[in-house]
């Protein structure tokens, strides 16, 4: 089974569009395909495919600290240990845990000598499964921040679980290919999306911003040792020379050029992108 990740650094360059178009291409050559939306903060693939994500297939949980005041000796060790600085204490008082910046690493309950920091299980995300056709499924990860209860920095966990779900489901259904669609940027959730893929398609546009961010993502792929190829979207809107230069710098090439297309824009906004076969 092959794993391909579609990413791009810059936002709004057409990652999700290209991911769906790639899926369409592979399906039309009678491959069994799973598209996995790893933009768990703002997933959109289902909207492009006219799907609703309503009933989650599985839930993602994490643990957060909760203070047991009967056991706490106010020693302040948890405060000193928290690398995110989300625990506060005024001298002589009980520590206060700020959940919204907690990454649920567990250092506080591990370090507490009195077992006063207890774990509380909270739902942090949901995973959805949509069947698009007989050989095409969509897996969507979604962080579910009832933001006051759980942390806001739990994106990575949900990406990991969505990936795992897609991998397991692909094996069960004997799929030929999983296409992962990541968030913009280059930080942790993007790295998790790229790791252990066979190939990355780095989507960009012919603007100075597109070129700049392409350099970052190609650099990242090189560091993660995953081969990358460039997809130039809206190729006719600008000069592709700079894009080519960056691609060459990282010893790769522009694999696909997709011109600006009213057909794609229309299908995109109407949620019917599964009907467009242009790659």
């Amino acid at each position, binding site marked *: 089974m092959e794993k391909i990740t579609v990413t791009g650094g810059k936002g709004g360059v057409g990652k999700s569009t290209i991911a769906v178009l790639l899926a369409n291409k592979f399906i039309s050559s009678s491959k069994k395909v799973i598209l996995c939306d790893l933009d768990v*903060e703002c997933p959109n693939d289902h*909207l492009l495919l006219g799907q609703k994500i309503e009933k989650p297939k599985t839930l993602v949980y994490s643990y957060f600290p909760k203070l047991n005041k009967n056991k706490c000796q106010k020693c302040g060790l948890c405060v000193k240990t928290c690398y995110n600085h989300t625990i506060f204490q005024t001298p002589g008082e009980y520590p206060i845990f700020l959940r919204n910046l907690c990454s649920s690493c567990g250092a506080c309950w591990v370090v507490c000598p009195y077992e006063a920091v207890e774990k509380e299980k909270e739902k942090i995300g949901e995973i959805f499964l949509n069947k698009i056709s007989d050989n095409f499924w969509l897996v969507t990860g979604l962080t579910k921040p009832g*933001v006051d209860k759980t942390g*806001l920095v739990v994106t*990575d966990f949900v990406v990991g679980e969505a990936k795992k779900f897609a991998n397991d489901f692909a094996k069960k259904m004997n799929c030929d290919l999983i296409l992962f669609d990541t968030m913009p*940027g280059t930080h942790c959730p993007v790295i998790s999306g790229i790791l252990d893929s066979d190939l990355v398609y780095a989507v960009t546009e012919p603007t100075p911003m597109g070129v700049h961010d392409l350099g970052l993502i190609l*650099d990242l792929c090189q*560091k993660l040792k995953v081969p990358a190829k460039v997809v130039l979207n809206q190729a006719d809107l600008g000069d592709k020379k700079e894009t080519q230069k960056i691609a060459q710098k990282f010893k790769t090439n522009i694999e696909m050029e997709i011109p600006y297309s009213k057909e794609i824009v229309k299908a995109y906004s109407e949620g019917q992108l599964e009907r467009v076969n242009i790659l």
Partner: protein
Amino acid sequence: MKMVVASGKGGVGKSMLASSLAILFAKDGKKIIACDADVDAPNLAVWLGGVSDWDKSKKITTLEKPVIDKQKCIGCGKCVQNCQFNALRIENKKAKLNYFFCEGCGVCQIVCPQKAIKLVPVKNAQILIKNKTKHGFPLISAQLFPGESGSGKIVAEVKKEAEKFQYDTMIIDSAPGTGCPVNAAMLDANFAVLVTEPTPSGISDLYRVLEVVNHFKIPYQIVINKWDINRSLSKKIEKEFEGKLLSKISYDQKIFKAISTLTPLMKTNLKAKREITKIYLRLVSIFKQTLLRREEK
């Protein structure tokens, strides 16, 4: 006052708007400081016409990562069991770190009975400072090194650098999404301008970022960019957010052409320039009203 420009969805026009507003405020004599809080993929400098010679660039450390002493490690697996990020495994009877999964929390160092693990600071980003751009105001930017983590804390560092300057308004250009870098950008903001576009994705992501804005209880207004690519969806947003709609910007391929030659939108004669000027004037009047209300209280 701190104004953050955000959006759930990427590529909807945050940096275009943030750069243009900064130029307009500055032209009016306001002391502006521009912050690029999209440290993953910073583009504000490009939208401001490019900055080639930064006055200051410094590598910074916002996280530590574990180094394992193989002589001391006995392969007991305590670190593996306690790591919430699956960043450790036992290989050849020794603990081995997957650097890219590690968040630097330090649990492994705490639980190791052999004291074989030590956290070491990592240089994970670069802060870039331009004291005076050609538009007259300072710009603080940063770049997370590809493969490193910790964007949220880097955003906090960018804002800390900005605080060293005197300013009336800090304009913060946020990353897309709703995660740590976005939270760090919004943390102490007084006002948010949320950019969206009339597509199903644009609307869905607007609702997502609103969860964060409302969590921090930040007053906000919405701008619909490329409103004319789907007039009916645009109307839907306008109706849904009545009273919260700042204004609309039209789609124009010429903006692409302008920025390809590093010409800031405000130096062109495009329609979008006039539309953003209107947005600026409305913002000024909103800020005035808020100030008046505060004084009355």
